């Protein structure tokens, strides 16, 4: 535990009631709250201590102790480290009161914990499965749940290492496929749920339309295959004419079981999987995971590596924001042309990624304690050329083409408004939060790596509409360019990894939460180690997943054509939303 964190627990020591106890397990931080007083504590934390944004909620299955733990990370939007608190309940039939009444932004994360871990949140307004479908057998992240292709609890599997036999999972699984069924199950007698629970929640709107005109209300599905849902995202919308009455997002069409796989993999094996979370910004995903594990291991990368990391993270931010702006315009109807401008610049940055890491998209470049290899010759010059000459010019160009465009302005200004209070309540982070007038940027609010050395402004806009969410991305690109110039000025020579590169790292027991300001918002990795070569728990706090809370809020009362643009302005990537 670093000094910083140990003061954290005691920071509010005198303000905390005596029925909460500090988490005294070695390597753990925060406090443990009795489950019966969780809500009381949550109100206290929010109203008295100013932790207004609930960043992350997740569960951990401590199978050997027979306990299920729910871990909360709460933030102050004025900055500072997160406050960690936990509740513990028995593993069998765990029931925890829902904190949605306190922080509405806990909604999806509690549903996720119910879906994957079977923790029931009492008082949750809509506790349904979220990533898997209703009717799926079991709660997959529980430690005693095994997938059909189960081999062993932890990698490297004996069948593959050190001998290395090729064994197709299909040949071993009883049904020769990735499926399993409960004993005695008869497929003929099965009636699929057909999203009954989902529609039940929406039917109440169908009854009265309340308008003077005789209008019918309709339930319409957009997606999962829809050209403007940015992948396999689905929204169920209740329409009154063209006006949106309510909207429910449906997730899970790209649920790739990151966390279950991550708990089987060794620490370092997870690095390439993080690339595939938000696949547009793989470098900053690497960053967050590396920080989380380094915090546990107590190591720091050498200077040069820090600079390289910042450089890659900022280049990634530029890529991601460019793509976001391009696709936003796509959603507005400027079909594909602005994207082509964005992708042109992206290609040049991808060339740099390819030069340093060997891959355009899935970089897998960060290591614990540094980066995989030094910059090859000529890369710095290329970055310099981009940053000094080309990118500023191109951003101005995009700005010139789009910002004053009449159609862009009419469709974006004042549409999909999100107030600062609601943004905070719904746990939005990143550009979505900042465009609503809350200048919360982790690089300033709780600086990690070497961000405290750079001069840059936290971009902030105040209207909270689509237009501001578009403008703030341009602002942030400009700030990133500013940071990059300083990186290029100051980057020292030297080693790029501390110690020897290891294929198997030793991670001491404990928990850690590493977070970075990713292009989409606060990207957090919550990891728990029990000293073994694999993480006991590996959880991703995915910003675009949590930012989606705001979608219904922004869309209600708007037109159906706008919902597509609103979604575009949140900027989601399904790999991260569904994980």
């Amino acid at each position, binding site marked *: 535990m670093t000094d910083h964190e140990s003061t954290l627990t005691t920071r509010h020591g005198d303000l905390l009631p005596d029925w909460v106890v500090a988490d005294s397990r070695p390597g753990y931080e925060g406090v443990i709250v009795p489950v019966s007083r969780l809500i009381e504590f949550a109100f206290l934390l929010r109203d008295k201590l100013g932790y207004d944004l609930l960043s992350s909620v997740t569960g951990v299955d401590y199978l050997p102790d027979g306990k299920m733990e729910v871990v909360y990370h709460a933030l102050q939007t004025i900055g500072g480290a997160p406050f960690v608190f936990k509740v513990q309940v028995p593993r069998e039939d765990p029931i925890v009161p829902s904190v949605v009444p306190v922080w509405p932004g806990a909604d999806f994360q509690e549903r996720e914990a119910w879906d994957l871990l079977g923790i029931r949140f009492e008082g949750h307004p809509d506790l349904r499965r979220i990533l898997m*479908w209703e009717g799926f057998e079991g709660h997959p992240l529980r430690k005693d749940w095994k997938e059909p292709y189960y081999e062993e609890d932890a990698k490297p599997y004996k069948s593959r290492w050190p001998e290395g036999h090729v064994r197709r*999972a299909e040949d071993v699984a009883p049904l020769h*496929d990735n499926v399993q*069924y409960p004993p005695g199950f008869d497929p003929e007698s099965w009636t*699929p749920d057909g999203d009954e629970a989902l529609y039940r929640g929406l039917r109440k709107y169908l009854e009265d339309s309340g308008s003077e005109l005789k209008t019918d209300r309709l339930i319409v599905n957009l997606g999962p295959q829809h050209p403007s849902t940015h992948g396999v995202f689905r929204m169920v919308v209740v329409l009154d004419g063209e006006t949106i009455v309510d909207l429910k997002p449906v997730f899970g069409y790209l*649920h790739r079981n990151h966390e279950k*796989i991550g708990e089987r993999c060794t620490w370092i094996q997870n690095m390439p999987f993080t690339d595939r979370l938000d696949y547009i910004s793989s470098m900053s995903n690497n960053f967050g995971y590396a920080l989380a594990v380094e915090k546990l291991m107590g190591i720091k990368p050498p200077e040069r590596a820090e600079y390289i990391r910042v450089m890659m993270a900022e280049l990634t931010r530029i890529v991601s924001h460019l793509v976001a702006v391009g696709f936003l315009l796509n959603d507005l109807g400027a079909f594909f042309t602005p994207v082509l401008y964005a992708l042109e610049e992206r290609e040049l940055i991808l060339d740099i990624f390819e030069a340093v890491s060997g891959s355009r998209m899935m970089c897998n470049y960060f290591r614990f304690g540094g980066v995989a290899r030094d910059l090859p010759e000529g890369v710095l010059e290329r970055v310099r050329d981009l940053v000094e000459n080309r990118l500023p010019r191109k951003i101005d160009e995009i700005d010139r083409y789009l910002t004053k465009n009449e159609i862009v302005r009419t469709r974006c200004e004042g549409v999909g408004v999100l107030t600062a209070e609601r943004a905070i309540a719904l746990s939005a982070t990143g550009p979505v939060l900042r465009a609503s007038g809350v200048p919360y940027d982790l690089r300033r609010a709780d600086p990690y790596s070497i961000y405290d050395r750079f001069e840059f402004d936290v971009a902030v806009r105040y209207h909270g509409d689509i237009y501001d969410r578009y403008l703030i991305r341009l602002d942030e690109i400009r700030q990133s360019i500013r940071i990059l110039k300083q990186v290029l000025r100051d980057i020292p020579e030297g080693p790029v990894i501390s110690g020897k590169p290891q294929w198997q790292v030793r991670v001491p027991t404990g928990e850690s939460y590493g977070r970075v300001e990713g292009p989409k918002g606060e990207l957090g990795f919550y990891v728990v180690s029990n000293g073994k070569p694999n993480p006991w728990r590996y959880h991703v706090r995915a910003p675009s997943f949590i930012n989606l809370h705001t979608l219904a809020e922004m869309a209600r009362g708007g037109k159906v054509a706008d919902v597509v643009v609103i979604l575009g302005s949140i900027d989601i990537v399904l790999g991260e939303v569904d994980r």
Partner: protein
Amino acid sequence: MNPIETLDSPGYDIPPEMRGQVNITTIDRIYNWSRKNSLWPMMFGLACCAIEMICTAASRYDFSRFGMEVMRPSPRQADVMIVSGTVTKKMVPQIVRLYNQMPEPKYVVAMGACASGGGPFKEGYNVVSGIDKFLPVDVYIPGCPPTPQALLHGLMTLQKKVEKESIKTSRWYSRRPVPPIPVPVLGPDLMSPAKFEEIREYTRKLAEEQAQGVEGDQSTQDAGQGGAA
């Protein structure tokens, strides 16, 4: 190659003054030639690979150079389904339905490791081990993600395949209609309707084993799942 050369069936005398204006060819050839140069992919992306697919459509690689730029969001207007990414159990019913909605002749390209065989996520409980478990795949493209060049190469391979088809033998033109692919069902796990018999057999055995050997037959317990809270 000059399209005229690929089209011409030699062996017929064309008067010299008509050469370059008149071609004699077979129906198969002219038909395949026009089809292969206007493959319309369906605009649908599943995961990371879709981003590389978009890059392939963008200015640097630009697959319109090969006659396949008209991406259609509607399956009714598409010829090729590029399965660009991880196929999950939750998504596969929709993919099969989309495939069924495409008019014939239709082709499937499995882009990337995930679509070809499950890829890095194969062991995941919500991941289908390759789209070929459900749809007939014409071209597999390796890579994670395949580079745009690889995708281009894959699509050109598909063009070559189209070129070799014959109206006489291809299944699209046989008398019997090609039946639609049964849409899988989401039960306690993904269920393919063709396998109901097999599933019933398996679960019956499981139940029997469970009834007999409560004394601790490990394999039964493994397969039968703990953790169902």
